[in-house]
C-alpha cells in the first residue's frame, strides 16, 4: 500500500468527479461537501461504470411509522444502471447483501489528489 498522486487538486471542483485510469479500469474521485471519496469505477452487480451515478444521502427509519432521518455525513453512490446504493466511505451496500464497491483512502497533498493503492 502506498500513496500515488493521480492528478492536480485543481482539476476536481466541489460536486465533481474525475476518473483516473488504473490497470484495466479507472478510479473515480469525488469531491462532495468538501470531502474526497475514491472508488473503483465498477459496480459489482452488472459491471456498470458506477462513477457515472448519483451521490445521495441515505434515509434511515428505525421502524415503520418512525421518524425518517437523512444521513448527510455518510453519502452513498447510486449506480447509474440499476440504482444499487453503496456507502461511499466503506463501499458497503445499503442493503444487507455482501457485494460492495471497492473504495480507496484518498487525500490532498501539495496540490495533488492522492490515493492509497
Amino acid at each position: 500500500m502506498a500513496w500515488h498522486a493521480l492528478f492536480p487538486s485543481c482539476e476536481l471542483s466541489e460536486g465533481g468527479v474525475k476518473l483516473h485510469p488504473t490497470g484495466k479500469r479507472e478510479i473515480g474521485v469525488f469531491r462532495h461537501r468538501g470531502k474526497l471519496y475514491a472508488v473503483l469505477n465498477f459496480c459489482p452487480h452488472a459491471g456498470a461504470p458506477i462513477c457515472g451515478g448519483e451521490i445521495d444521502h441515505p434515509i434511515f427509519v428505525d421502524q415503520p411509522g418512525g421518524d425518517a432521518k437523512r444521513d448527510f455525513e455518510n453519502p452513498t453512490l447510486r449506480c447509474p444502471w440499476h440504482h444499487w446504493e453503496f456507502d461511499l466511505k466503506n463501499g458497503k451496500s445499503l442493503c444487507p447483501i455482501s457485494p460492495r464497491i471497492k473504495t480507496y483512502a484518498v487525500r490532498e497533498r501539495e496540490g495533488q489528489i492522492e490515493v492509497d493503492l
Partner: protein
Amino acid sequence: MSTISIVDCDVHQPSPTREQLAEYLDEPYRTEVAKHGTRRIASGIRGEDGGNRRDLDARRLRDPHYYREALLDRYGHRFALLSGATASIAGMPDPDYVNAMCKALNDFYMAHWLPVDPRFHLGLKIALQDPAGAVREIERLAGAPQVAAVCFFATANRIPFGDRYYWPIYEACERHNLPIHIHPSTGSTLANAAMTPAGHATTYLESHVCMPQFYMAQLASMVLNGIFEKFPRLRVAAVEGGVAWLPHLLWRMDAEFKALRQQAPFLKMMPSEYVKRNVRLTTQPVEEPPKPEQLGQIFDMIGADQILMYASDFPHWDFDEPTRLPRSLGETTLRRILHDNACEFFNLA
C-alpha cells in the same frame, strides 16, 4: 408416508343454516337474517361449477361427524383448521353487520363443531372492515380451547394488508400468539371493484386461475410496508393461493429493494428473508407442471421443507389428498410439509 399424521391447514365447514345463524345473532340482525337470509355480494360469475366434491354425501355435509369420518379418520389427521365459508362477511360494506356476523359464526362453530372432535380447530372470523371491532372479537375469544388462527380474506378488501389500517389487528394477533390465515373469498371478490388486476373476470375459471395474483400483491404489500419489521412475531399463512409464483415474487422483491431501498428504509433484512421468517404457504391446489420433476425444482427454490404446509381444502372440488405431493420429495421433506411446519406455525406440541 402412511405413518405421518396430518396437520391440515384448510378445511371448510359449511355456513350454518339461516335458522342456526339467527339463533346466535344479536338484534337487529337476528330478525333480518331470519327474514331475508344473509347478505351477499354477487360477482356475476357461476361459482357453482366449482363447489364441493361430487362424490361426497351432500346430505351429511353439515354434520361435523361426517368430516371426522371422511377426512380426519380416513387420512390420519391430528389437526384440522376450520376456515369455514366467507361469502357472508368478506367484503361486506357494513362493519356493524360484519361484526355481528363474525361473533355469531364464531359462537356457532365453537358450540357445534369444536366439541365434536378435539382435532377440529377454529379460524376466527373477524371484520376486516372494522379493525377496532376485529380486535374486540380477537380479545373475546383468544385463548379459548381449539381457537387456532385469525382469518383474513385475500381477495375482498379495499385496503391492502400492508396498510397501517391493519396494525391494531396485527398487534392483537401477535400479543395473543394467533397466526393469520389468509384465504380467498371468491364470491366476494367484487368488493375489490376488480376481480383481477386486469379488471372483472368473466368466469369462475378465470377468477380462480388469477387467484395467485392477489397473494402476490398482498404479500408484497405486507413485506414492503414493513409489517414483519413492525410485528416480527406475526405469522401468516397464504392459503389456497398456489406456490409456483413465490420464487418470482421473492426474486423480484429482493432485486428491486437493492435499487429502491430508500422507499422502504425501515426494512432491516432482505424482503425474501421476511417471507421465510414470517410467512408460510399451503400446498393446495398444488400446481401440476407437464413434467412432475419441475414441481420439485420449484419446491427446492422456495425451501419447501421450511415454508410449505399441507392443506386439503376438504370438501371443495379442488381437494388434494395428502398423497398428492410428489413422493420424490423424500420422507423428511414430506413430513415437514404434512406435519412439522404446521405444528410450528400453530404452536402444536
